């Protein structure tokens, strides 16, 4: 961005500015991508429906995206440490199942169980983190195995889809009448900004970039990895809760697809699978892009059987162009 660099008075500032651009090129790209998707969606919606999308469309898009947004956030915590979490879908299954069995009671009980469900998610993440960090096992294998375990427990908790989510709970997390979920976007942004500035946040990036160097700077790699997986588990539990609120019932297999889509959303959001690069905010936008692409395909009157074909092509096109733009920007620096 030459305009920005020209405006900067001193050489140091210019360096910082372009450094910030290089660091956040993924974020800039995903925001551009999301803008393009929103414009494309409005155009196609207008052609199909002869009016622009309104409050209902906004609300349903937001409510549909929030579970994926938290799943992508969960994936980001782990991927930043140069790991990968295939158990995201299993934790969502489990927390969703527990939610369906427990939330339908008096408000206080619902509130307590909500906290308990977040703790369950954290415990799942803790198990992953301990196995990876202390057990010295590869993340992809650990989470592959725990995925199977969490899925099994989820089916034990809720053998058939069902249960009931109280309307009050739904109206807080996934209000079908008003786009209240809009509030969660800045909330995630604030949480991420705080996390990024904590000791843990700095450690997570350091470990993802170079675990040996981080260790020699006094960062406990094991502790960092364990906490990152634990936070990921809590975020997955949030996804499970939002999913339950949106569906107003539970299903012990509903989370399965989120393992892979959370990776897609994180990658679209500029989170590098090689660790240390990307942000939770990017993953949040990546989740919105993923959902918007599905919306666009829906209103394009594409045979739904071909849906995954176009999603696959879109993912490849997005990653290839992001790679090209990213390396271009880095070279210009």
């Amino acid at each position, binding site marked *: 961005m030459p305009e920005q660099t020209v405006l900067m008075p001193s050489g140091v500032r210019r360096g910082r500015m372009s450094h910030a651009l290089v660091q956040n090129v993924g974020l800039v790209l995903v925001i551009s991508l999301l803008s393009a998707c929103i414009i494309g969606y409005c155009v196609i919606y207008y052609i199909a429906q002869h009016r622009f999308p309104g409050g209902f469309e906004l609300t349903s898009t937001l409510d549909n995206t929030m579970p994926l947004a938290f799943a992508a956030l969960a994936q980001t915590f782990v991927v930043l440490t140069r790991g990968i979490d295939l158990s995201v879908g299993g934790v969502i299954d489990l927390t969703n199942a527990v939610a369906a069995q427990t939330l339908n009671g008096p408000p206080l009980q619902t509130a307590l169980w909500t906290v308990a469900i977040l703790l369950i998610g954290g415990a799942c993440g803790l198990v992953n983190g301990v196995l990876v960090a202390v057990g*010295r096992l590869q993340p992809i294998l650990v989470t592959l195995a725990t995925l199977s375990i969490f899925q099994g427990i989820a089916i034990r908790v809720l053998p058939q889809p069902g249960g009931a989510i109280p309307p009050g709970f739904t109206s807080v997390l996934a209000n079908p009448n008003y786009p209240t979920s809009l509030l969660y976007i800045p909330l995630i942004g604030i949480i991420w900004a705080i996390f990024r500035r904590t000791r843990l946040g700095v450690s997570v990036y350091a470990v993802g970039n170079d675990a040996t160097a981080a260790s020699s700077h006094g960062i406990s790699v094991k502790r960092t990895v364990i906490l990152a997986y634990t936070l990921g588990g809590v975020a997955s539990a949030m996804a499970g809760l939002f999913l339950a609120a949106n569906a107003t019932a539970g299903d012990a297999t509903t989370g399965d697809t989120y393992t892979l889509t959370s990776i897609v959303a994180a990658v679209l959001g500029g989170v590098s699978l090689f660790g240390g690069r990307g942000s939770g905010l990017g993953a949040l936008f990546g989740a919105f892009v993923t959902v918007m692409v599905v919306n666009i395909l829906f209103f394009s009157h594409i045979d739904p059987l071909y849906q995954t074909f176009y999603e696959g092509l879109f993912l490849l096109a997005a990653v290839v162009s992001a790679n090209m733009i990213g390396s271009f920007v880095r070279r210009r620096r």
Partner: protein
Amino acid sequence: MIGKLLTRDRRRILYAFIAGIVLFAIGQAVRPGFASFDGIRSILVVASFVGLVAAGQTFVILIGGIDLSVPWVLNAGAILMVTSSLGSDARAIPALALTLGMGALVGALNGAGIALLGIPAVVMTLAMNGIMQGLTLGLSGGMTCTNCGAYAPPIVQAAVHSRFLGLPIVLWLWLGIIIIVSFVLGATRFGRSTYTVGNNARASHLAGINVSVVTIVLYALSGLFAALAGIMLVGFGGQAALGMGEPYLFQSIAAVVIGGVYILGGRGHYLGSVAGAISLTVLVSVLLAFNMPDYGRSIIYGVVILALLLLYGREEDSA
């Protein structure tokens, strides 16, 4: 002497085989006849499908890659086989060639995306899985084709069910593939290149190995083996079904890893993946013999994989 013969990699293969034998013994104790010749034979047939997919998965994991497109390449192969052969023996050979060619082509595209465009293997093969799923569902119209004789040709069914010297032909085929793959990896220039690329792609490039070509060929082989597994599965069941490939993704990766192939590449043998495929299949059968409900099987499956990993899958150097 024994210490020298039993290198770490060989020890892991041995462990995986021992795990399989122990599981057979447990099965025999729970249900007499479990480890009879018939019992072992039918478990090996089921294991061969995982083993075929695991052959391709071994190739790509040896260079630090992964193939997540296995489920729908397998599924596309199965459907292409039945729809192009129309269940007739006369068309079986061209249909086989077409199906295997499709698998190899899709795999080569994976390899090209990874090697030439620099797309991470996880993303490339994940996207390819979606692309193949969409194409398969779209072109087959969701398998609504009821009058096109969507059955595998009798000779393909015979390849799985009829026997030669007491063993189903598919097991002989698997044995042949085990020998060929082990030979290719262990005793050819290409095999050495594979391990070299897996250990250090940059150094391999500097040493004059064409890393891109090796990568593309390995992913093409993975696609080929997935398609072959699809063909064998329609031979086994007679018909293709949508979603039939899904279980083979995690099973193939688990088999490769249990067999001691290092997930970051450069180390391991196909024989290990074979042992892993057999152990996993026996494990599932044992759990079925216990009349274990679905959820229990899922939990124990994960716990056993973790236990095996903790036993011998740990990293040497902790950061």
